[in-house]
């Protein structure tokens, strides 16, 4: 069969997917770009063209800058913690011990728990009057009086990060474990014979195998952490005193709570730009890591 026939047939088979994707992603994205240059409200008027006014206003606003910092803190700290905990758990699960299979099966539980259920669960654990965290810490004598973990600007973001890490580090662990199991036994054995200590062995024998998959996990988790909405909405709605208001929450408020579709759209596109730049930068890193691992 000729090449052009194959290609035409392939496009025909792609067509349904492409049509749907253009309808539910392509068109809305183009429309968001259009909206971002207007002062449109969510309902009613189409709005007037205002040029880059929305972008200028949003980028200059203190709310945006604060949300950007909060989002960056959430993303960097939670993803870094997930990576470290995930690799440590994977190194443990790669050892031989009784109950290893069961423990590995358990790792799927936090991942399988719906995000909203996880958020609700931790909200209950952090409850200022009846929460398990307050109860456990006071019963152990580590805390004098019950605290409002999600109600104080000083602890709310940390409490959210802990909840997010608990759900996501097991996934990193499973990815890292699969990579560890691909390390040939004779290589680790050879490095033992050569007298490599555990740290040398990790750095020079094991890490090269982990680098590629871990970089990919890092990219995906960072993008997700940058887009974070669900867990924050359920646990704090961006409070207290906006101390956990990440960019997605800010866009939601602008576009839907205040019904300012135009400036909300510009804000959403600014967030998209940030995520894209992050992803591209990481993409370059991944290729580099993959290149050095091969």
């Amino acid at each position: 069969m000729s090449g052009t026939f194959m290609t035409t047939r392939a496009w025909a088979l792609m067509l349904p997917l492409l049509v749907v994707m253009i309808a539910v992603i392509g068109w809305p994205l183009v429309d968001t770009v259009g909206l971002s240059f207007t002062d449109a409200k969510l309902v009613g008027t189409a709005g007037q063209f205002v040029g880059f006014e929305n972008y200028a206003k949003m980028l200059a606003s203190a709310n945006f800058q604060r949300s950007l910092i909060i989002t960056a803190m959430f993303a960097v700290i939670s993803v870094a913690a997930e990576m470290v905990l995930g690799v440590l758990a994977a190194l443990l699960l790669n050892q031989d011990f009784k109950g290893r299979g069961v423990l590995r099966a358990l790792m799927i539980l936090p991942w399988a728990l719906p995000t909203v259920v996880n958020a609700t669960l931790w909200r209950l654990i952090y409850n200022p009057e009846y929460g398990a965290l307050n109860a456990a810490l006071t019963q152990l004598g580590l805390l004098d009086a019950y605290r409002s973990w999600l109600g104080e600007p000083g602890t709310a973001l940390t409490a959210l990060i802990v909840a997010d890490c608990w759900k996501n580090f097991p996934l990193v662990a499973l990815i890292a474990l699969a990579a560890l199991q691909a390390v040939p036994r004779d290589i680790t054995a050879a490095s033992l014979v050569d007298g490599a200590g555990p740290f040398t062995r990790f750095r020079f024998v094991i890490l090269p195998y982990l680098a590629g998959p871990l970089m990919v996990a890092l990219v995906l988790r960072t993008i997700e952490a940058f887009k974070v909405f669900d867990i924050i909405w359920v646990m704090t709605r961006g409070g207290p005193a906006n101390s956990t208001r990440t960019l997605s929450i800010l866009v939601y408020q602008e576009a839907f709570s205040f019904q300012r579709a135009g400036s909300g759209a510009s804000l959403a596109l600014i967030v998209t730009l940030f995520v894209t730049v992050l992803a591209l930068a990481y993409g370059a890193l991944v290729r580099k890591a993959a290149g050095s691992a091969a």
Partner: protein
Amino acid sequence: MERKSPLFAAFLYVSALLLAVVILAPILWLFVMSISPAADLAAKPLRWWPETPDFSRYATLLSTLENSAGAAFTASLRNSLEVAGMATLAAIALAIPAGWAVSRTPSIGWSLSLVIATYMLPPVALAVPLYMGLAHLGMLNNVFGLALVYLTILAPFTTWLMKSGFDSIPKEIEAAAMMDGAGLFQTLRIITLPLAMPVMATSALFAFLLAWDEFFYALLFTSDQRAKTLTVAIADLAGGRVSDYGLIATAGVLAALPPVLIGLVMQRALISGLTNGGVKG
């Protein structure tokens, strides 16, 4: 591994125990809350295990009596099943031809890359036009409308999984069938699709889990029992003035049950799906 001193073995078991506690404690506590009498949960010092387990909240939430707390919950349960089910079927239906086409004709692969790149888009970048569009079509607060929107998440993902599945089925088998006179669709139906069954099942499960988990679009586009999904119903409970925390926990257990069971039963397939994703990007 090779040399294992007793000290190292002890360290291993202590670490393993610690990891098990970290993973299990929050989940077990969710379950304990769901079966503890309200008085136990409000007690100081907190009672960690109920004297008499109380399973009545499960009956309360699963009752379909009109205007009961259960009516709202079971309605959202049904909505979640309908939306996730429809979105999954539609996503797979789109993914099979598209995934096969890209697998067998790599020259059009860039179009799939473009579709997958939309993963980077935060949902807020699409939300306003989708909201206006659904309003225009009269499909706000409607399970069909929500399922359609879910394709933004499900379809790229399933197509990519199906494509890697088809990649591992040798072209030569299809070529042999065609040589024997089978047409394209006959070949796909008789040869390729049966071989792709496992990957199709994995893709469908992933898609279902993604849809079951979705919250943002459901929060925006649904407003009452006709379309509200479980995630929104639980967020309502958690953020509302429900005084019985056990009831919130019970709703959480029920919503977590299907994905947790799928996760445990399908472990191997899910992990290999996840890690393939991790390796191939």
